[in-house]
């Protein structure tokens, strides 16, 4: 899974390159206007800063990041930007195809960790099961 997340970061950078080279081929989704995107960025950066200042545990950040990834990139990413570019679509499909495996793996691992430290992880486990 670690390798897959690193791969996803590479995919995101390739998507960025495709969009940068042909911005006219893409349109932002209806629900994702500039202020909404800026709010997302601020929220993510805030959580990253909290982690760096050790205001939240790395374990909690993992779940925050998981929620962000799932809601923004993997579940709703198709609504963020739309384009007919085949390379772009192939990269997006690759991320989606990894999602099911990741989710099942994470549920399994959280269950294992939950046995070791029930209160903290159990809360996130319940959130993930929603």
């Amino acid at each position, binding site marked *: 899974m670690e*390798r897959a997340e690193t791969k996803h970061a590479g995919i995101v*950078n390739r998507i960025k390159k495709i969009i940068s080279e042909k911005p006219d081929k893409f349109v932002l989704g209806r629900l994702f206007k500039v202020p909404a*995107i800026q709010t997302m960025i601020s929220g993510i950066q805030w959580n990253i800063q909290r982690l760096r200042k050790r205001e939240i545990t*790395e*374990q909690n950040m*993992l779940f925050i*990041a998981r929620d*962000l990834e799932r809601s923004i990139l993997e579940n709703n990413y198709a609504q963020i930007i739309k384009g007919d570019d085949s390379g772009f679509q192939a990269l997006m499909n690759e991320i989606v195809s990894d999602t099911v495996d990741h989710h099942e793996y994470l549920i399994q691992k959280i269950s294992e960790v939950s046995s070791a430290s029930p209160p903290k992880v159990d809360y996130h486990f319940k959130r993930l099961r929603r």
Partner: protein
Amino acid sequence: MMQQELTALLGLLDVMAEVELKMGSSTKRVLKPG
């Protein structure tokens, strides 16, 4: 796509790439993947 939209979107992709990398390293440390 307007320039302002492009800038915002590329900024989001930057931060998402950072999150993906962070998730990768956190996964390794916290969940000890197989």
